[in-house]
């Protein structure tokens, strides 16, 4: 099992955003998370990637505990050092890309493997070029992010995340900031990664994509997982009233 989250609770002040969420992801699985805006999808990914601290619950990557909860019910994070080791297991692709504007496309992809993972420049360059080829961007290696379309920027962001060779890749609405005509090119590379058995968790509003690509779909609402299962089951025959309602709104 690559990721195991259990009993996750997270509040912002009075607002309970995640109420006892459990989620596990196996190697090679593609899990889509759908749900109305404000239901806590981003917060869940941000907790999984340690951008937010959980209040209670457990998080494990590759059977290594990152967060445990003691008898008093408060979350305990492992030591800084171990946490940094665990961070190597995942990557995150943001809705707003968050590329480094002062770095060229190639440097965006190469910099972390060289300066974080301390790998050799030559080796990293070769892999980065290969990744850019895969993202259909090899001729934009020397461009700067501001010279690229949103779809191209998001593909660079995916290459940047993949360059660190994560075991699992999270996507938080990777196409929501894009013009509709550019979503296809990003979804295409995610689909391609799915075919290569990359383990992924994708928060998305692209229902046909989620249905076609994922092994499992999770419907979240108001901080809880309302329903989950095979995409054909969730989309074709939803059991919960809230799921039905949400999907009905989406057809229109």
């Amino acid at each position, binding site marked *: 099992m690559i990721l195991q989250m259990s009993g996750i609770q997270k509040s912002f002040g009075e607002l309970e955003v995640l109420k006892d969420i459990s989620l596990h992801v196996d190697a090679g699985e593609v899990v889509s998370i759908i749900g109305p805006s404000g239901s806590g999808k981003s917060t869940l990914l941000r907790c999984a990637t340690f951008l937010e601290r959980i209040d209670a619950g457990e998080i494990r990557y590759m059977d290594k505990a990152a967060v445990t909860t003691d008898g008093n019910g408060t979350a305990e994070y492992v030591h800084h050092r171990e946490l940094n080791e665990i961070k190597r297991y995942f990557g*995150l692709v943001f809705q*707003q890309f968050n590329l480094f*504007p*002062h770095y060229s496309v190639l440097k965006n992809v190469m910099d972390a493997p060289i*300066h*974080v993972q301390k790998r050799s420049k030559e080796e990293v360059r070769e892999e980065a070029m290969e990744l850019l080829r895969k993202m259909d961007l090899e001729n934009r290696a020397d461009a700067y992010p501001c010279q690229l379309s949103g779809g191209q920027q998001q593909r660079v962001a995916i290459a940047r995340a993949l360059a660190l060779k994560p075991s699992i890749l999270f996507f938080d609405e990777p196409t929501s900031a894009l013009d509709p005509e550019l979503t296809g090119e990003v979804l295409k590379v995610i689909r391609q990664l799915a075919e290569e058995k990359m383990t992924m968790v994708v928060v998305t509003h692209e229902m046909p994509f989620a249905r076609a690509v994922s092994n499992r779909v999770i419907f979240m609402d108001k901080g809880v997982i309302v329903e989950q299962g095979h995409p054909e089951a969730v989309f074709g025959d939803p059991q919960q009233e809230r799921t039905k309602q949400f999907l009905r709104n989406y057809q229109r």
Partner: protein
Amino acid sequence: MSLSTMLTSMGAGMLRSCLIFFLTLLFSLPLGMGVMFLRRSRIAVVQWITKIYIAIMRGTPLMLQLLMWYFGPYYIFGWSIRGYRFTAIILGFSMNYAAYFAEIYRGGIEAIPKGQYEAAEVLGYSKVQTFFKIILPQVIKTILPSITNEIITLVKDTSLAFTLAYNEMFSLAKQIAASQTSFMPFIIAGIFYFIANYVVAFVMERIEKAMNYYN
């Protein structure tokens, strides 16, 4: 007094003005960075003291601050320090400009989107790497125009060193003008400051252009 003698006697003053200028930049640019970190400290007391410091530095005349730095040690502590004049000038200028630079840095840092820090964190960059590799280069680009303004003001402010009877360019111009009953030294002084600022503007524009490879 001929023009060339006038220029020669003012030349030493020009050098002293330049010395004040460069030493102030040398100290205040990094010092401002330190002040900015203290200003953004999570410890409330540190933040408050820094705020008060910045408020005083920006809220009182630099001329008064120079007098305080120079005469303060004697009147407050009864210390008379030999050869302290120049040190007091550099202290006064550096502490004052550090406050201005700190606020410029702070504005620049706060303008960097949170997503840049988050991306760096998820990619595994350390805090130090994130600051120096990701944040600072972007900050420098955005604050460059404000820094240029400050530097241009500094060129003109060096003339305030005359308050402490330091023989920089402007003090000499005044002395010569009085002794020779001539207006010429003032014109020379004006041209000197103007040219100095022209050079500053030119250099800074070059630097800004060099950073224009991205938006």
